[in-house]
């Protein structure tokens, strides 16, 4: 009997320290910063070589904790941690949208004074405009992180070999596109065109109708939601006709990203929506005999106009200092050290000839880069505008041996950049009621688009849909956004 108790107590004493979270600052040693990030490579960043290098170069001790990847759970946990006043010194958020939502709640330090005193490198290396999205009432609450150039990155790809086989050239208008799809349909059993339900608006086609992945459009200085753009109905009519005539995948509404990649990779599809982060499927597509992927230019209207989603015109990520941190000065000093040109180069780019080589004006990563700095993006808690493009090129080229990331990104960008337009609301602070109505209106729109395109609903139900959209908060949301938009000018 006694033995059980003794065993139990010994077991607890033995195990407790191994699983406790004691991280004590020693009196004289380097300052320890507790960092919470919401992105993690498939490994523990506390033991990554990049972390060791950063600690050596900046003189800070870094301890990383991780938030869940799932956005709902991430927000839930982050809110709880912030409300509980957990002692994190820095929080790196891989969605500036989350930062924008949390700033008004007063969880974070106002950084202007700290930046002026300790943040010379950050201020010198970050464009003033990048601070706009994280500014509230003239005060800065986060250090923005710009990761990539602005580019149009969610277009469509087509199988060049299939097009060549039927002597088709790249279509430029919806009619030409439809004609090409008819030829393919009547050919050897390919699915002419497919898309993913997560992207109900396919930029490549909708471009000709004046809409794209952007939710808002500037029409004569007024913000207009996509559902009220004149091209909305025309786009849906065109797409539902494609479905009716067997030119568009009837399973569209049920297609997940993964399913689309599988369909294209199996060689059965001629044209498909494609996102640049789907690069890992590119290699599988090429396994089909002679398969060659090309990226389609957005279709143009009869007047020769088009539009595509321009992504990345604002910083993608942000770093904040929660008010519960006891070392805000040290935290800013660390970010400032990270933004320094030499340190940034050593951590994120490495040495020419060792970590990267110059090829055709592009910086290409070597295998050593992948081994030593493959996870360097976990340390990206501030950015350096002058080195950003270099980092992007090296990072993308180092992702995979076939350079599919780089090729897909460039292909998408080259195909649509000429007509790409940023969402006018992207750098504005969202109105408060956006939290209440934004998501539900978004899914209402998505459901309507999917049901019309897949033939469940008829486009004649548009008026009823708009009525419902207005009733469920649409009218108020349009007014609220327009107030913010007009006051921002």
């Amino acid at each position: 009997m006694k033995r059980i108790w003794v065993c139990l107590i010994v077991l607890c004493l033995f195990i407790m320290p191994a699983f406790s979270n004691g991280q004590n600052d020693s009196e004289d040693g380097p300052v320890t910063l507790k960092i919470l990030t919401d992105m993690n490579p498939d490994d523990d960043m506390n033991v990554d070589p990049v972390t060791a290098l950063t600690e050596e170069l900046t003189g800070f001790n870094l301890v990383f904790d991780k938030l869940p990847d799932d956005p709902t759970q991430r927000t839930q946990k982050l809110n709880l941690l912030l409300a509980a006043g957990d002692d994190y010194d820095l929080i790196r958020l891989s969605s500036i949208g989350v930062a924008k939502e949390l700033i008004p709640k007063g969880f974070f330090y106002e950084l202007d004074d700290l930046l002026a005193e300790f943040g010379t490198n950050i201020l010198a290396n970050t464009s003033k405009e990048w601070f706009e999205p994280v500014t509230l009432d003239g005060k800065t609450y986060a250090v923005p992180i710009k990761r990539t150039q602005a580019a149009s990155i969610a277009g469509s790809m087509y199988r060049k070999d299939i097009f060549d086989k039927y002597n088709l050239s790249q279509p430029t208008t919806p009619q030409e596109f439809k004609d090409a799809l008819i030829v393919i349909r009547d050919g050897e059993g390919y699915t002419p065109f497919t898309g993913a339900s997560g992207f109900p608006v396919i930029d490549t086609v909708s471009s000709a109708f004046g809409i794209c992945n952007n939710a808002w459009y500037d029409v004569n200085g007024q913000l207009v939601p996509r559902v009220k753009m004149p091209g909305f109905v025309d786009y849906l009519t065109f797409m539902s006709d494609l479905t009716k005539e067997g030119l568009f995948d009837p399973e569209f509404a049920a297609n997940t990203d993964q399913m689309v990649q599988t369909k294209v990779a199996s060689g059965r599809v001629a044209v498909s929506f494609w996102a640049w982060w789907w690069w890992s499927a590119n290699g599988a597509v090429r396994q089909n005999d002679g398969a060659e992927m090309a990226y389609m230019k957005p279709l143009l209207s009869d007047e020769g106009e088009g539009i595509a989603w321009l992504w990345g015109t604002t910083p993608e990520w942000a770093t904040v200092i929660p008010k519960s941190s006891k070392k805000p000065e040290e935290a800013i000093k660390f970010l400032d050290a990270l933004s320094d040109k030499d340190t940034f180069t050593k951590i994120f780019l490495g040495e020419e000839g060792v970590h990267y080589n110059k090829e055709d004006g592009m910086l290409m990563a070597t295998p050593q880069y992948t081994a030593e700095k493959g996870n360097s993006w976990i340390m990206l808690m501030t950015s350096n505008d002058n080195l950003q493009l270099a980092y992007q090129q090296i990072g993308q080229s180092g992702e995979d041996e076939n350079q599919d990331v780089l090729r897909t990104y460039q292909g998408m960008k080259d195909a649509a950049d000429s007509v790409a337009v940023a969402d006018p609301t992207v750098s504005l602070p969202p109105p408060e009621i956006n939290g209440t109505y934004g998501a539900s209106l978004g899914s209402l729109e998505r459901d309507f688009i999917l049901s019309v395109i897949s033939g469940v609903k008829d486009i004649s139900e548009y008026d009823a849909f708009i009525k419902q959209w207005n009733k469920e908060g649409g009218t108020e949301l349009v007014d609220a956004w327009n107030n913010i938009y007009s006051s921002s000018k």
Partner: protein
Amino acid sequence: MKNMNRNSRKISPFSLINTLVLLIICTLFLIPFFHLLAKSLSGAYPVIRGEVGLWPKDFQLDSYINVIGNRQFRNSFLSSTFLATVGTFISVLLTIMVAYPLSKPYFKGRKIILYAFVISWLLTPSIVPVFFLIKNLGLMNNLFSVILVNVIYTFNMLIVKTYFEGMPESLSEAAQIEGASNLRIFFTIIAPLAKPVIATITIYSVFGYWNSYFFPMLFISKPHLRPIQVYIYELVYAAMGSTSGNISDVASKNVSSIPDVVRSTSVFVSIVPVMMIYPFAQKHFVKGMLIGSVKG
């Protein structure tokens, strides 16, 4: 006559159909399992192209070497093993020690304590107070937080209590006359006799801790302490892509994508322990349901 009966039972169309139907249902359950196994043993390209059904294509074992060699996977596996062993030990010990006095009609305040258990079981508190409790106890980033929140599952406790109630009172009375203390009676007489029910709740507890996701997700932020289910969910989540609806969020993610093969392998390895325990534990699962259902 007896022989005839036995013969007719052998070829009874009812049992034939029964067996067939059960076999079909069994196959239906096994198909996804074999599909996962086949994917984990196949090359990356056939998997993306959707060519792998129940038999691997471009057979390889590298994914297993990589997954088992992955530090994060090993750490997560260890965390879950810790939860399933230490957690179960503590949980079972506390459950039976709570159930025993509650099974004694002469124990004062028995009803109130019992109601307290049942009410807290039926009206699960929201996560906010639980989160703050764990935080104030200083148990964040400590695996004991996960053990603690599920340490006594009232349903299990009631099963054990009912089992104890079915045991003859004379057993403990006899020991009492011999001069044994309550603890001694419990550990040397009652607990050994309750082995079947202890086995049942042990199994529930092992699987419960092994499969726990929500509380570890909430309480554990240290990458190396994340239990296996949290790790696996993140691998699987990475593949779900834009289904969450926020396109900008997806686009700003890092481009690192984890191949389906690695994902399948990780999932498969994580269910191996459960698969190994299950055949031995299965009879207790069935027994557990019946224990206490009839009071003698």
